[in-house]
């Protein structure tokens, strides 16, 4: 999964709903109830099979208290490690991960 995002699927839109949900321990049903949709719709959004309306997108961003560009994008999101540590930092994180695998 590139940059911890859902692939664009049919919607052509990348999003981070699955990551944010997992990070905050929220079930699909809880999120669906909060924004007034079916839990299946959250699943379709996460898989990128459905592009939300502006209203739903803003409801989701309000629920997570994040700006809309933090959750939805037409371009793939950068890796979170790359955003936090820069490109070299992300590479070293990946190499560390590879190194720890090799030493096993």
């Amino acid at each position, binding site marked *: 999964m590139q940059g911890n995002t859902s692939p664009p699927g049919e919607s052509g839109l990348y999003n981070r709903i699955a990551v944010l949900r997992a990070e905050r321990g929220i*079930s*699909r*049903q809880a999120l669906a109830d909060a924004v*007034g*949709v*079916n*839990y*299946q*719709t959250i*699943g*379709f959004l996460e*898989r990128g*099979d*459905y592009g*939300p*309306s502006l*209203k*739903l997108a803003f409801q989701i961003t309000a629920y997570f208290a994040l700006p809309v560009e933090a959750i939805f994008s037409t371009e793939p999101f950068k890796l979170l490690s790359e955003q936090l540590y820069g490109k070299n930092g992300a590479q070293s994180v990946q190499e560390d991960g590879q190194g720890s695998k090799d030493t096993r």
Partner: protein
Amino acid sequence: MKTELNLLVIKIDMAPRTNRRWLVAILYGTLAALMTLAWMRNRTGTAAAFIAINFGLAANLFIGGQYHGKYFLFGSRGLVDPFDGNEILERNTRKKRSFFSRLFYPEIGDPRDLSNDERAIRRRDYSHFIAFRHLGSLVCLGLIIDFYNLNRDLMPASLSSLSHLGMSVDQVIFCILQVGWVFSCTLPQAILLWTEPDMEASQ
């Protein structure tokens, strides 16, 4: 759309698209077999019409799309949520309801069984659009056949008798009307069941 077909005590997992496609194939296959048999046994088409009318209504038990109140057949409901679910919910929240409103929009059960979110509405509209086109083709076919039936002098010799079908023109038109009725009751739901991707089971 529900992920489980609940038929009284029998519950069938319908989250995988393959299962839903099987359901559609079995329903239309059964209808085709029954109607063929009916037309072979009864040339007036009365039996086939009886089957078509009742099949169109009974199929709702499996595929849904209509709402008959929470007590209908012990609460049996089809897979597709009622197409007019939001309108039913809105009507049921009114304080004063007319006799006809109570008759046609009976008491609701779980509001979540009725409410259509934005994606459901978008999919509903799409399925009706596709169904409408197919129904339009059927009507067009009926029109063409009936046109030649009423203007027999214009009819090509090969079409003057539909003997290869073993049916008269009137019978063919009656058959098309029967299929049209069933499609008008079931095709949008069938398109939804056929096209919706695999879903997650309920949580």
